[in-house]
């Protein structure tokens, strides 16, 4: 029998990466928050690879951190190895990737959650969203019959909605690491008007350390000097990285042959399952088929934890039957005798169509109901955490009656991510890529705090202590600029002469400021530090000065692009137009526009199926409306 079990400001359903950030954000913003999860032991689980960050994703983690979220600190505190990627490809795309200890990561996160004021993490399976007769959100109901009232509900159900685990011909209800699926909630969502679709993802086998012959692989050490995700290091994060290495090996012709011979035993290849998989993280069988001319594929062997004997086999995700998996696994160099401790599988789950959401991640149809994470069709821990954070913040702001907090495409990767979800919509699991961000030179990982910490503080999520650290850094950068601008170095300065010759830089005829010197492409902040006049700061401050001066020209160009972009972005479309009646629009555009009711011309331009010609027509339409209304005023 159902019973009333309590009342909250905010209920978060699911304790994955989205749920954790959502619950922490809401609670930290003073909301009485309840996080309900299927298993308290699997909070912040990394069911796939034990690594966080990488291109675009690393930027997201730093943005989360700058806003006052938890993921960055948690990854830093539990890192086994870190690496700065893309160092040769430009300052905007440096990307930190950390291998975290999967078990420590979970343990630390539950500790943080449990110690958070206003937050209770409770184990229960949520089976329904409760609405009253008028369709207003009331709360949720759990399988025990417990009904909780809540002003807001954030669904972060990950891959658990009616999930099924598939290995070869075997297709059974299931969820990661032996948990049970979230049943009931899918039906409940359908009954209140949500269309659900089936997405899938997969994971590779885990192998026993003692059975892997690492000598046949290439060692992939980390770089202890890669830095941290968090802009606000604590005792916990500042530990020396242990630098546990990863290893690189490859598939070969024999591996591919076995896979090809056994495709008939995959439910996805026999066409029995419709699940749409992630393009950028395909199963090994997909890779072999899609890139049939490639004679080998890279595979990384990654540690799961300091205490753990399990190794993760990145790039080897498979939904083939267990016996086939073992067979082709043993063809890989170094894996001849590998013992499997968990086999790979594909998981299918329900996701909503993210187009039903606002930029706050609140449902357009049901006030107070938010969605975040994989349930919105994304893939990846970082993407999930970012949504959780934004949903949590916005739920809290709504409860307090404040303006929503929305990040734009030119402010943050998080802004790009959410805008893509709610405006463009997605048709396959969405992974954040740098290429989806138009202004990535502005959205660097090194300046996430400069972009967002002020906002994080204003929202109330970034603590006073962290904010003070931020202000200090900002002050140092400003001071640094002043010194660079005002310090003139004489062309007769001996150190300068030496430094210039060393770097093949043409000696100036007259005195140059440090700023002018730094602008020279052949010189860098590090090189100029030979000059005693060069201001000395913590590394991250010098890095800012270096980047902001040396890339000024490009940054200016990108800012001009943003200004251009904002022109359409700020052109609002009236919400009462019937687009069907606008001649000149394509039929598809009329329907899509009527369906999505974009708020601005910029939004409209990003809806799939809306062409530039349609946007021209809309501009002209707006122009005419203006003309008409001004004429009416004159009459």
């Amino acid at each position: 029998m159902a019973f009333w079990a309590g009342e909250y400001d905010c209920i978060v359903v699911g304790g994955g990466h989205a749920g954790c950030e959502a619950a922490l954000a809401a609670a930290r913003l003073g909301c009485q928050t309840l996080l309900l999860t299927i298993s308290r032991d699997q909070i912040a689980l990394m069911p796939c690879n034990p690594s966080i960050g990488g291109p675009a994703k690393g930027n997201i983690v730093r943005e989360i951190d700058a806003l006052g979220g938890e993921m960055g600190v948690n990854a830093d505190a539990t890192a086994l190895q870190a690496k700065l990627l893309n160092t040769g490809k430009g300052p905007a795309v440096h990307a930190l990737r950390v291998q975290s200890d999967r078990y420590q990561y979970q343990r630390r996160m539950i500790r943080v959650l449990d110690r958070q004021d206003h937050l209770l993490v409770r184990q229960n399976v949520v089976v329904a969203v409760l609405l009253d007769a008028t369709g207003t959100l009331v709360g949720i109901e759990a399988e025990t019959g417990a009904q909780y009232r809540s002003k807001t509900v954030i669904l972060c159900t990950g891959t658990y909605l009616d999930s099924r685990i598939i290995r070869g011909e075997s297709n059974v209800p299931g969820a990661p690491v032996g948990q049970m699926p979230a049943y009931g909630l899918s039906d409940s969502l359908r009954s209140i008007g949500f269309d659900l679709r089936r997405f899938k993802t997969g994971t590779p086998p885990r192998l026993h350390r003692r059975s892997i012959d690492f000598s046949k692989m290439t060692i992939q050490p980390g770089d202890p000097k890669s830095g941290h995700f968090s802009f606000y290091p604590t005792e916990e994060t500042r530990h020396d990285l242990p630098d546990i290495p990863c290893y690189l090996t490859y598939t070969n012709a024999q591996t591919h042959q076995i896979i090809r011979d056994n495709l008939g035993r995959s439910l996805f290849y026999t066409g029995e399952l419709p699940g749409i998989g992630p393009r950028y993280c395909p199963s090994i069988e997909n890779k072999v088929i899609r890139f049939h001319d490639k004679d080998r594929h890279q595979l990384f062997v990654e540690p799961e934890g300091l205490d753990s004997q399990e190794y993760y086999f990145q790039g080897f995700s498979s939904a083939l039957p267990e016996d086939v998996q073992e067979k082709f696994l043993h063809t890989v160099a170094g894996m001849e005798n590998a013992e499997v401790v968990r086999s790979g599988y594909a998981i299918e789950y329900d996701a909503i169509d993210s187009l039903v959401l606002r930029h706050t991640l609140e449902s357009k149809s049901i006030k107070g109901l938010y969605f975040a994470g994989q349930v919105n069709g994304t893939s990846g821990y970082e993407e999930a955490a970012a949504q959780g954070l934004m949903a949590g913040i916005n739920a809290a702001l709504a409860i307090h009656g404040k303006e929503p907090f929305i990040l734009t495409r030119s402010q943050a990767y998080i802004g790009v991510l959410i805008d893509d979800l709610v405006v463009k919509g997605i048709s396959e699991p969405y992974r954040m890529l740098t290429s989806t961000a138009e202004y990535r030179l502005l959205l660097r990982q090194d300046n996430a705090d400069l972009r967002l910490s002020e906002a994080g503080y204003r929202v109330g999520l970034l603590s006073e202590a962290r904010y003070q650290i931020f202000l200090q850094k900002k002050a140092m950068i400003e001071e640094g600029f002043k010194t660079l601008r005002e310090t003139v170095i004489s062309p007769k300065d001996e150190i300068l002469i030496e430094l210039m010759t060393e770097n093949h830089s043409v000696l100036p005829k007259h005195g140059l400021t440090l700023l002018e010197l730094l602008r020279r492409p052949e010189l860098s902040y590090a090189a100029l530090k030979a000059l005693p006049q060069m201001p000395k700061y913590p590394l991250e401050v010098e890095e800012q000065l270096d980047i902001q001066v040396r890339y000024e020209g490009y940054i200016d160009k990108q800012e001009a692009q943003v200004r251009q972009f904002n022109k359409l972005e700020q052109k609002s479309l009236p919400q009462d137009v019937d687009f069907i009646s606008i001649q000149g629009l394509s039929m598809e555009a009329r329907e899509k526009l009527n369906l999505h009711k974009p708020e601005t011309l910029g939004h409209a331009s990003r809806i799939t199926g809306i062409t530039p010609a349609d946007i021209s027509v809309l501009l002209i339409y707006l122009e005419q409306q203006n003309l008409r209304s001004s004429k009416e005023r004159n009459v």
Partner: protein
Amino acid sequence: MFDQQETIAAIITAQGMGAMGAVRISGSEAFEAAQFLFRSKKGTLIQDMPHYALAYGWIYDGDVLLDQALLLKMKGPSSFTGEDVVELQCHGGPLVLARLLQALVSRGIRMAKPGEFSQRAFLNGKIDLTQAESVMDLVSSSNRVMAEVAVQQLQGSLSGKIKAFKEKIIGWIASIEAEIDFPDEFPVGLVTSVFESEIKVMIQQIDALLETAAYGRIYREGLRLVFYGRPNVGKSSLLNGLLQQKRAIVTAEPGTTRDVLEERMMIQGIPILLMDTAGVRDTGNLAEQEGVERARGAAAQADLVLFVLDLAQGLTEEDLLLLRDLDPEKTLLIANKADLVTNRVLSFEEKVKGFEVCILSAMEQEGIDALIQKIRERFESGTLTAGNEAVLINHRQEGALFQARKALESAQEGLLRGETTDLLSIDLQDAWSYLGEITGETVKEAVVTEIFARFCLGK
């Protein structure tokens, strides 16, 4: 703008120019209205004609026969305006056309305003805003409505080129981004030397485009059609035949024409510059020699060479020699004086393989219509364009093209300085975006509203 469209009509050939006149009717009542005026020779009704079909017949205003006419039927949405369209082509002069229009107006058809066909074409998604813009450029100057068809075709060639540039740039950007997004697959950066050479080539191509993009050249000058061939084959007679007036001197004596004679006309909506030239032969006469040189020069710069030979004499050695230097793509071979032979089968067909041949008689005015049709076909298939490279670019587009070039140049400089590929992509992004402004794929508010302000908004 977004109101129910009336059916409109206008004369689409220039006033007082040439012999052919045409009227276009566009809108839902186009077929019905035309049917009232037109009686086909075979008795076919317009509604029963297939799409893009021609019918020969007569135009009546009530019981009064106005003229003979050719009727072209185009069914919406695959017509220029996207609506049902009828074009009536007749021989009569301005007076006949005026009466024809009058008759249409009395049936409730409205006279089209300048640019209105294009406006509809834009609203029906047949042309993009920049194509419409080009029409507006011309319409607001002197050439009025008749330029529309031609502009549309010419714009196509510009968009084609710009789109090719854009695709290339997107390819570069994509390869840069793939390296950034998948560092495990591409641990080291891209080799930038590939970009260096490819960007250089693109800048050269843009320069070529900027050079040949003489603004509105076609509309000041028209397509160059040059009559070319040996003396006395009937070049001047043919010019007169097309113009329907005795413009050039014709005598039975070889070497009559000396200087290049230029004359303008419209051929079915296409502005044409006809050029009659001296017959090519070795001669001791200095004036004639100079004329021959000019003839060669004109042929070299022609958009289409009308190579004339005398069918009664067959293909002579000299003819062959001249033909050898001509590009079949840009040449029509005209076998004139067909009236002098009884058997009209070409005996020399093998030797002129690749050349399209048109057998006619300038004297008897026979086969001239077929010649006109052939010219039009060439134009529509796109093989006949103004200068091989020439495209129609207006001021704004030229500016955008210039900006795109600047961005590419900046990318090039960055490469030389050794900047990383990610920074390079910012310049490439800019170049791409400026190119998009030319084709209308990059939407800039200022541009769109300005262009459209020039349309007749009707209010």
